């Protein structure tokens, strides 16, 4: 078992609020891991700390055995961590292709190379037909897909997905799940924040649960849904009734 990402005793507070509180976790290479927990439990802060958008107060983040704790986000991206954002923020007045090329520029120096990489990602994510559309004209589902495509264009070994399934209907959810499986099949490790259990449970090999910035459980999906602590804090009584 090789751990691609290791987080040790990570802490971050905003004002008086302890957003992430002594968090330790490890992500196995090649896995799809779910990060779940109530709204405000520290999931997105955790992503921001791993990808370098914000600096932790204490603690260590190691990626592929190398400490990345205080590196700039651009450096971390080049080392192989890609991420999406909860609210898709494409460059609305640029085309889909141009948006993805911006991701590709993190590992290419020429227009031709970035364009080649971007087209390959568009093909893979099923957005090729829409390459010339302005990002502003995309539907919610395609905007989420574009968000994933931009992150993939950076050539990540680890992809952090922040609620890419929320707001999709069941047909679109199936499509997004297929895409995430295909990403893993390419050898990319996935860590995903998501509330849609219908997607998290079948997709993930492992699930980590946060509450008030702390890890309260981690386990396989079938055991997580029967964990009383997780039902109390997050899943609710409907899940208790199911078990």
């Amino acid at each position, binding site marked *: 078992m090789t751990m691609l990402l290791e987080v040790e005793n990570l802490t971050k507070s905003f004002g008086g609020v302890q957003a992430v509180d002594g968090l330790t976790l490890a992500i196995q290479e090649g896995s799809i891991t779910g990060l779940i927990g*109530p*709204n405000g439990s520290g999931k997105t802060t955790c992503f921001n700390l791993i990808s370098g958008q914000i600096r932790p107060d204490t603690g260590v983040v190691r990626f592929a055995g190398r400490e990345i704790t205080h590196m700039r986000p651009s450096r971390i991206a080049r080392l192989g961590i890609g991420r999406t954002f909860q609210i898709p923020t494409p460059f609305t007045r640029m085309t889909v292709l141009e948006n993805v090329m911006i991701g590709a520029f993190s590992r290419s120096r020429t227009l031709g190379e970035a364009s080649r990489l971007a087209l390959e990602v568009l093909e893979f994510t099923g957005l090729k037909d829409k390459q010339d559309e302005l990002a502003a004209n995309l*539907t919610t589902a395609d905007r989420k897909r574009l968000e994933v495509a931009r992150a993939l264009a950076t050539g990540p070994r680890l992809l952090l997905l922040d609620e890419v399934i*929320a*707001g999709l*209907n*069941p*047909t679109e959810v199936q499509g997004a799940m297929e895409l995430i499986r295909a990403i893993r099949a390419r050898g990319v490790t996935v860590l995903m924040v998501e509330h849609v259990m219908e997607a998290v449970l079948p997709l993930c090999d492992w699930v980590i649960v946060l509450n008030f910035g702390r890890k309260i459980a981690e386990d396989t999906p079938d055991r997580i849904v029967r964990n009383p602590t997780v039902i109390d804090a997050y899943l609710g009584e409907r899940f208790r009734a199911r078990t």
Partner: protein
Amino acid sequence: MLVLEEVSAAYDGVQVLYEVSLHLEHGEIVCVIGANGAGKTTILRTISGMLVPITGRIWFENARIDRLPPHMIARRGIAHVPEGRRIFDQLTVEENLRMGAFLLQSPRQVKEAFDQVYQIFPILAQRRTQRAGTLSGGEQQMLAIARGLMSNPKLLLLDEPSLGLAPKVIDMLFEVILTLNGLGKTILLVEQNASRALEIAHRAYVLEVGRITLSGPAKELQENEHVRRAYLGM
């Protein structure tokens, strides 16, 4: 109570709704389900006057409202709780609620509205002086609904209230919708979470590419083969 008759609507010349007809009776919960981009939000926007239909008529309590400005429609008793909550982040919980009460005439009415809302949402009473932007996602959604209730509406339009909420919070939210219905509020609900919406709705409409393609009692639609495949993921 509410009747839409062959309503068509467009944004910048791009047509989104095609002759949509639907109706709500007093005391009903009715939901509209459909894919992203089908026009669900647009239906709500034409009802609340945010968008004027290009053709068609809308009646609320037997009076035409489709050419009225939004604040006049709100005055007649329709509150629109938009997708994505749209609360005022920088204002406190209480200030947000006060904004929802802008139509009320007397301080006594405002006080009654606050009392009712705080009774339904005790958590908001606890957080009344807190800035709204610091609330959790679930609390923000409750605040958005509470703000809509402050005008004491007869009809509540709810746009994707469960979006991005934790499973346990979604349970609470649907409980709240049932509570409001029990208090006599008529509810038009637009939801991506079709299975939960159909559980609590009396009737439902299916909207596909701007057209109503199916309607009926929610129980029947739950059993409908097409609905099960396309919207319930079965």
